[in-house]
Every structure is written in C-alpha cells, then in structure tokens.
C-alpha cells in the first residue's frame, strides 16, 4: 500500500493544547501519521481522543486562543502548515486540501444557494468569474450524482436531504481538485443506506483524482470498507498504526483489541454480548502517567503505570505503543488472531 516519495500529508509529533477554566487540556500529544496519494488513512478512536483536533489544527481551524499548537509539524506536499498565518493558510485551504464535516445539515450556509457556495471556492482560488464558477459548480454537482444539478444549484440547503447535502459538501470540497481530502466523520449523521452511497462516491472520486483521504471515524465498519491504513488514537496519541488488515486481524494494542471486541460480528455466533471496554476515557487535564490506557487495560503491568511505552514495530509498517511488545515483556497471552 505505501508508496515511495513525498507523502501528501505528513504529520509529525503534533501537540495541541487548549487553555480552559479548568486548566490546560492536552488534546493532542504527539501524533504522527503519513498519507500518500490515492490512499485512505482512517483515524479511529472514541470521542475526545483528539482525532478531529489533529486535523483541525493542521487546517488552522481551531480557535487560537484558547487553542495552541505546542509542537510538531504537519506538511502538505512538503510544505509546512504549522505556523502559517491565516492568509497563507487560505491559499492552501479549499485549494490543495478540502474538508467535509460530520453534519451536512449545519455545515452549509442556510441563506445561500448551494451553487453559490460551491462557486465561491472557485472564485476565490481560481479567480474565475462567478458565471463560469456557477457552471463549474453544476458540473461538480453532476459529478457527485445529484440529479437535475442545474436546478438543484439554485436551491437552498434546507431543500435537500442529508445525504444530498453531504454530496453537495463533497462537490464543494472537490471544487479545486485538492490533493488531500479530510473527511471528519462524513457519514455519522446519515442513515446506513445513504452512508453506503456517500462512501462509494468518495472512493470513486478518489480513484479518478488519485487524492489522499484522511477519514476520521469511530465506525469500524466504515474503516474496513474504506481504509488502506489505520491510525488508532487514544487520549491524544496514536497507539497503533498499520494497514487495515494489521488492525483487524493482527491488532497488537489492547485498546485496538478492546475496540474490536466491542464491535458486533455477524459471523461469530454465540457472541451474544458485546464486550465493552471498562472505565471511561482519561481526563486530559491530567493524563495518567505512563501508558494512558493502563487504568482500563486488562493486561496492565507495573511499568505501564510509570513509564511511557514508546513505539514498537510489530510488522511491516505496523506499529503499536504497548509495553507488552517490549522484548523483555512476559509472553503475550495468545489473542484469537485467526484470520476470518
């Protein structure tokens, strides 16, 4: 899967903090991942694990203050994004990287015709006239298979269904054929059949444009369908990183294993109860010392409470951060790792 050459997006040791009344929240604590052209990276994790904050930080969308990028870098086609001012970011946002959001119903301006909203991106980045941009907007809507695109372009968001609006969002983010598409839970607000259509559309466009996708989700079903590679995040860190098969069949981190057990499996009979991960996500005001997952980890050892595990290579381009992968760790109890 991984290709040589410069990755479209390369995030390295990114750290983001927020100042709040309760103190400093360390939302992202050293996240690294790469995405190559034509590849989909899924970023999974529970609510508040920092998966959205990471991409919003690199797009310059987090409000500063209270937000702040403390360290690390994020490079888009080799160009550093962290530290750019808003004007410099505006040259990149919408042009080289597009973003689609969770709730299409609220993510579009309710008092502006959808055609205008799409055309606006083109007017700003390509400098073409509004009429030309509107024509292009209709073509983009057609590309995302919106029927009667010319009429639909003249309508307002409230005249669309959720699935149709997400198609509009996709057309909008694709207007300038970006190299990178960031999709922040693009199907969470949609029902399952519409989810399927939207995901299929994204894949098709990815094949045609050869763009890189960062797909943020907490739905492992979506991951299995879309992703080439997966980054599992917990408490602001990437705890496991590997190919989609690595994550689904050779999960090395107890958190990833826990997530999989919490997922329904229609082939596995006799599994009436889904195993929930005990406990609750850590308090990011004061993340636990050592491995952030240790309070909930069934395999936690003494060292997990005191020292950060660091990253271990589990396989080809498959990494996990767990003390049990250390060479001196006691033998790992065999996980049911039969490929299904």
């Amino acid at each position, binding site marked *: 899967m991984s290709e040589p050459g410069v990755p479209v997006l390369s995030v390295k040791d990114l750290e983001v903090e927020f100042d709040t009344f309760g103190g400093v929240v360390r939302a992202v604590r050293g996240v690294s991942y790469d995405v190559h052209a034509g590849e989909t990276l899924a970023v999974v994790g529970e609510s508040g694990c920092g998966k959205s904050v990471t991409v919003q930080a690199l797009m310059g969308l987090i409000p500063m203050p209270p937000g702040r990028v403390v360290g690390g870098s994020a490079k888009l086609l080799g160009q550093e994004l962290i530290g750019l001012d808003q004007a410099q970011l505006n040259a990149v946002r919408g042009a080289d990287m597009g973003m689609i959001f969770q709730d299409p119903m609220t993510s*579009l301006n*309710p008092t502006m015709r959808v055609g205008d909203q799409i055309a606006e991106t083109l007017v700003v980045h390509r400098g073409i006239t509004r009429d030309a941009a509107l024509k292009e907007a209709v073509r983009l809507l057609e590309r995302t298979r919106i029927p009667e695109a010319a009429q639909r372009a003249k309508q307002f968001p409230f005249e669309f269904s959720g699935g149709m609006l997400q198609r509009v969002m996709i057309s909008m983010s694709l207007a300038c054929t970006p190299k990178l598409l960031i999709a922040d839970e693009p199907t969470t607000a949609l029902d399952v059949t519409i989810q399927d259509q939207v995901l299929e559309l994204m894949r098709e466009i990815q094949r045609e444009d050869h763009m890189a996708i960062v797909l943020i989700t907490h739905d492992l079903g979506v991951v299995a369908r879309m992703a080439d590679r997966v980054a599992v995040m917990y408490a602001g860190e990437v705890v496991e990183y590997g190919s989609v098969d690595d994550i689904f069949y050779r999960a090395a981190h107890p958190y990833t294993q826990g997530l999989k057990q919490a997922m329904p499996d229609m082939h596995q009979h006799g599994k009436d109860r889904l195993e929930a991960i005990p406990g609750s996500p850590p308090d990011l005001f004061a993340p636990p010392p050592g491995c952030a997952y240790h309070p909930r980890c069934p395999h936690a050892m003494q060292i997990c409470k005191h020292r950060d595990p660091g990253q271990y290579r589990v396989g080809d381009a498959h990494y996990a951060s767990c003390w049990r992968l250390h060479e001196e760790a006691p033998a790992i109890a065999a996980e049911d790792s039969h490929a299904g």
Partner: protein
Amino acid sequence: MGSYIARRLLSGVITIWFIATATFFGMHAVPGDPLLNDKAVTPEIRANLERAYGLDKPVPQQYLIFLGNMLQGDFGISFTQQNRRVNDIIAEHFPVSATLGVLALLFAAGGGIVFGALTALFRGRLPDYLIMLLVIVAVSVPSFVFAGLGQLAILQLNRLVGFSLLPVAGWGSLSHMLVPSLVLGLGTMAYLTRLMRSSMLEVAETDYIRTARAKGLTPQRIFFRHQLRNAILPVVTVLGPAIAAITTGGFVVELVFAIPGLGRYFVQAVQQLDYTVIMGTTVFYGAFLVLMVIAVDIAYGFIDPRIQVNKSLS
C-alpha cells in the same frame, strides 16, 4: 403569497376591531366625560350638548354608531377642539410623526446592526467594552433625559460655531429632524446592538462558518457573505415590535422638541377624555402597527429563504 397576505390582513382587521372595542369600553369605564371641564355648565346646556354628541344614548348604541362610522372611515369630531374632525387631526399630524419615526427607525436599525457587528468583531477588546457600556446607558436612561441632553448639546454646538447650525426645537427642515429622531431611536438602537452582537457571536460559532474557513475564504468575505446575513435575521424579527416602541414612544420626544406630531394629541386626548380623538388615534396607531408587523413578516421571507409561505396553508 397573495392569499397569505389576505389572511394576514383579515386577522389584522380582527385585531383592530378588538383594539377598538377594548378601547371604547375601557374609555367609557373611566369616570368623567369630555364635557366635564373647568367651566361650570348648567344642566340644560349639558343635556343639549349630550344630545348633540349622542352621549345621551345608551353605551351599546353609541358603540354601534361608532363602529358604523369607523367602517366608513369617519372618526367624528373632536370634543375639545372646536369643529376639528379627527380625520383631519390624523391627516395633518401623522405624517410628522411618521417622518420622525422612520428616521428614528433607520438610525436604530442601521446603528444597531453596525455597532452590534463591530462589538462582535472586536469581542473582548476596547471597542466592544466601550460600545457595550454606551448600550447600557442608552437602555437605562429614559428618552426625556436624552431629549433634554440633546437640546443642551445643540445649544453648545450652536454657541461653538457661532450661529444657529441646528434648531433646538420645532419642525420643518431636515435639520429639525436630526437630533429628535436620534434621541427617539437611541433606546431601540441599544437594544438592537445587543441583539446583533449576540447573534453575530452565535453565528461565528456555527458549522457553516467553519466550512467557509475550511474553503479558504478571506475573513472579509466570511464576514459579509456568510456571517452578516444570518446574524441579521433575529434583528429583522424584532423590527415589528421596535416600530411599535418607536411610534408610541414618540410623544415624549415630540413634546420636548415641540414637534407637531400625532403623539401629543394622543396623550392630550386621554387627559381630556376626548372620546373621538382617543378612538381615532388608538385605532389608527393599532392599524398602523398591525400593518408594520405584517410588512416585517413578509420582508423576512425575502431575507431568509427557509421562511416561506406554507402552500398548504395558503
């Protein structure tokens, strides 16, 4: 759309009828009558006068006569101003009040939107604190104080420039209208500023503003094309009641600046129990406000595409 407006107008007519009826009986419930003034009147003269004005008839019959005349657009003759028809009073003085009110409303809406947007733009910085402080002052201080202060300011200004730049009172030219309408609109302007500020801040937090930023739009473009229009919607909603506040609040300002508006007659009539003038001005103001609210509702549909006339209703 046409039938929607027709329905709104019909319900407006019912509202006006209700206002007229409530005012009529409320007015008659007040002790005394317009003939009861300082001058001693013999019982004979009084009986003659009552017959002449129809006050000797039972109240329900008076009510029916009044309704019948009102339907023909006739509010009768004033009790206290000799041989002056109520319709003439309204026709003569309402344009003055309306001009003052429209100017005040323009000040209020324009100022409210601009200052509200400014405070939101400079949130937590000096311009924000300064404007919000002035807003609290403008909301708290009654208009007659501002009217007096306004006149004082005009005096000082005239003294400063050495000639009469702005007249202190009276009516006629645009220079007469400037300060009174500013004073009249001030309270509403302050209220709209606050509303606009909170509305702007709310819109700034929405997902679609984030989308606009993710598209790489400049802050100016986001402000004018995405934020402003959505933030103005709540302001437009309260414009109806704001018109009410300005027109009914006008009489104090009219009194202080000696402006020959309708407000003065409205208040005077109540003090003198001038039945016909009370009825005429109240019903007229009522009808005017109902019309304004309908106009605002219709205007709202043009600004917000989501507010459309439900076809099944119309």
